[in-house]
């Protein structure tokens, strides 16, 4: 933690902004202070004043701009190339949406402004919620959660509130072995313990295993459908019935909703709570890790527990409804990631009902095209038509040639392609989880296919070369063990002296 950076001894792709600092250089301008200036210690107690300035860089605007532009160029994004990261729906983000989110009519709004000043913003939130309700097939919505995992925990808190209202205290949440890591983490954070159920030979939830663990201690089942294997669960109605029969609720993880828009609605499947990732299905960009938005849509019986405020409409005005005595409370300081919601709204209005359905169609077509073209080269555990994504296994390459999925992923980088999600889901050995999305053309899919086939060939013929990949990236394979053993998680000034 306290190790100093020894940058002089190692080569550097781009200096840290701190290393570009030069005393006295400035990157800002502010007007002169125009009110009478008082001594600082006349305004604040001397013992509350900061003694040492923070070590922020001293750089000019051009230094800053060049630094961050150069850094940006070290990144691969959807706008640089194909990015088939499974379960993340890395689709193209239309530019007009960015412009809309940057309108000052939205960005220059204080969250506590009186509601009569923010009618446009409230209308946008309200209508986005209406569209999500329609797509989920459920009647109530909150736009407050700002990420998928945030929607999940909000949902699980609703589950608890619901059972408590019935005088029940349930402790278990069932999660399939193929689930995203956020599901079990969420359940535990919400105070539940988790029970894992296996998938059957078709990749669906194993009904016998489910039957065995069902009892009146089960609070909920968390499920994605299609699953992380990209497969639509054939028994979904039956599963829902089984959970409901013991008084549990069904939570739908919407990470994979891109596959089903207009074709199947979680509400019709029997789910009680659905989160959508607006940064996945609804094209808001992923921001290098965020911000996202994870609104949840719920059934009638959960409506009164939704977090406050709920954006409502009385036929004339839009308003924030705080008068909800059974609400679980708040999960975000204000109203969620409004700026991200604008982008999703623009996307939905731009495509319309038909367009959204075409999204699902083309996402599924593209995934099947890739799966069919690659399954002769990489092991496919579940050989049946997929939905929007599918999972290959590099286990043959590993066993026969010592080439791991990690090697395959790194080799793809040398083709200028972003690798799929790797080593997930956990139930597939050496997994490669591939989600092309609908915004890729047949040509870009063909390029990916060609690269994957070449890599499969290289695995046979020159496996050593694959261990060396990548060679064309800004940096090559990084020593993650070193980073974890001796964490260096910040820069220190050169004159920094260790105190221990």
């Amino acid at each position, binding site marked *: 933690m306290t190790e100093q950076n020894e940058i002089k001894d190692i080569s550097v792709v781009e200096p840290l902004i701190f290393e570009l600092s030069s005393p006295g250089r400035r990157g800002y301008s502010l007007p002169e202070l125009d009110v009478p200036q008082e001594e600082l210690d006349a305004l604040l107690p001397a013992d509350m004043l900061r003694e040492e300035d923070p070590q922020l860089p001293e750089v000019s605007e051009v230094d800053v701009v060049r630094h961050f532009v150069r850094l940006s160029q070290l990144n691969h994004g959807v706008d640089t190339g194909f990015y088939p990261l499974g379960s993340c729906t890395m689709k193209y983000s239309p530019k007009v949406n*960015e412009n809309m989110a940057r309108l000052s009519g939205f960005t220059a709004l204080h*969250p506590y402004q009186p509601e009569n000043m923010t009618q446009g913003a409230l209308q946008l939130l309200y209508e986005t919620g209406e569209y999500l309700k329609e797509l989920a097939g459920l009647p109530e919505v909150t736009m407050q959660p700002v990420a998928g995992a945030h929607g999940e925990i909000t949902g699980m808190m609703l589950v608890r509130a619901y059972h408590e209202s019935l005088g029940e205290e349930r402790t278990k949440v069932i999660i399939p072995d193929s689930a995203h890591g956020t599901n079990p*983490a969420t359940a535990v954070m919400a105070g539940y313990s988790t029970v894992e159920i296996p998938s059957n030979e078709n990749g669906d939830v194993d009904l016998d295993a489910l039957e065995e663990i069902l009892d009146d201690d089960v609070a909920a089942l968390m499920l994605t459908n299609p699953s992380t294997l990209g497969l639509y669960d054939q028994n979904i109605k039956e599963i829902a019935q089984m959970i409901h029969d013991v008084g549990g609720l069904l939570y739908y993880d919407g990470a994979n909703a891109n596959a089903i828009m207009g074709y199947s609605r979680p509400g019709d499947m029997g789910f009680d709570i659905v989160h959508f990732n607006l940064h996945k299905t609804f094209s808001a960009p*992923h921001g*290098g890790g965020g911000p996202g938005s994870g609104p949840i849509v719920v059934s009638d019986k959960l409506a009164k527990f939704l977090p406050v405020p709920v954006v409502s409409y009385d036929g004339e005005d839009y308003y924030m409804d705080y008068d909800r005595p059974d609400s679980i409370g708040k999960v975000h300081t204000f109203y969620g990631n409004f700026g991200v919601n604008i982008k999703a709204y623009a996307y939905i209005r731009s495509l319309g009902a038909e367009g959204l359905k075409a999204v699902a169609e083309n996402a599924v077509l593209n995934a099947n095209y890739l799966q069919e073209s690659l399954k002769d080269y990489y092991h496919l555990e579940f050989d049946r038509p997929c939905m929007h994504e599918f999972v290959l296994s590099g286990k043959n390459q590993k066993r026969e040639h010592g080439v791991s999925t990690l090697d395959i992923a790194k080799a793809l980088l040398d083709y200028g392609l972003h690798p799929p999600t790797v080593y997930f889901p956990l139930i597939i050995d050496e997994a490669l989880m591939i989600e092309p999305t609908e915004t890729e053309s047949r040509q870009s899919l063909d390029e990916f296919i060609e690269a994957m086939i070449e890599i499969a060939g290289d695995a046979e013929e020159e496996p050593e070369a694959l261990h060396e990949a990548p060679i064309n990236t800004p940096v090559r394979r990084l020593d993650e063990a070193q*980073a974890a053993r001796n964490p260096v998680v910040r820069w220190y000034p050169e004159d920094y002296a260790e105190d221990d």
Partner: protein
Amino acid sequence: MKYIPNTDEDRRAMLESLGVESIDDLFASIPEEVRFRGDIDIPEGMSEMELAKHIEGLAGKNLTTEEYCCFMGAGAYDHFLPAAVDHMVSREEFYTAYTPYQPEVSQGTLQVIFEFQTMISELTGMDVANASMYDGGTAMMEAALMAGRLTRRGERIVVSSSVHPQYREILKTYLHGREWDLVEVPVSDGVTDMDALTEAVNDDTIAVLMQNPNFFGLLEPVEEFQQLTGEFRNAHLVVACDPISLGVIRPPATYGADIVVGEGQPLGNPLSFGGPYLGFFAAGSRAVRRMPARIIGQTEDVDGRRGFVMTMQTREQHIRRERATSNICTNEGLNALAATVYLSLMGRQGLREVAEQSLQKAHYAAQRIDELPGYRLKYDRPFFKEFVVECDRPAAEVVSSLLEHKILAGFDLGRMVDGMDNSLLVAVTEKRTKEEIDELVARLEGLA
């Protein structure tokens, strides 16, 4: 079809290679009973021009802080946004990437976060910061949960009522499922009632949560907090603070904070109706493996070049699953980028200047308002850029009357705090000019 490059010919060729007749066949795995056959009730799509016009119409219905002079704060602040910030966050390579799972092609994102972590560490005086939380309120909640992981026993969380009411509401919401007591300590004369706090904190206390400057803009008796939490080994001191204030006010590390959190919005992020914002989160190095969320570390590549990777990932949900330190995955990375660019542009001198100008202007405004008949400063205590004005009428009335003069006079505290209907919380940033402050004062006077 919009944003979908496949042509009918592409689709035909692809279907043929799959050996299926129609796209509909690809959906055959959806059982008929859950197949949606209806029409989605969403309006028809729009062209780009129509869309822009429609949404500009919605935006146009809002009355913004560009037209109205903003003295409203209460957790979201109208600070100056240098133009370069938005240009940098508009770089496609940054905003169309995701979590940097492949470090070889994510050095941009990774290095930015490393720089962000360094800046937050410097501002707060703490050893290590993470890559961001959802916002200030959820960051404080995560700090309380982390305090629980840092101690083997204890089940009491003590929070001062001078902490932002919505932060406390989030805390209450999240702690509901746990067998912990959440004890709220009352406010006395605008700051934490130290007698009540002393009574509330005991051996069973995991964390003491405070905000400094607090929700009313006032500085808390931090030394007393330090002394009290020092007496109880398990009690971790969690401090939420305004990052701008740290340009002039001593960092929480100097008064014994174990975890420092806050709302990062004032650092280069627009008000944006409450989000996306970013929470920052910093702690001592010994606690690092109990921290929530992503942390970036420095390392080298096989050729000896410096590089950055996600580190200590075994804390996180994608590896540790039900035993993860938090369920957070998607964070507020782009907002952290904005904060990093902002702090780079401002630098040590600029941050100090923003803090000092806000401080000076707020005190000028407070003094002028205090002199007016019908208004007085509610608390005679040190404050930073925000203060409470006691009016001789409901603050809601004052706010709505001043809107006629295109002034957002402040936040009506009656909306969130019982018995404070006549209290107006006024925030003054470096953006407000003397002329605007004088206009506020004149209009307030005109009302009285």
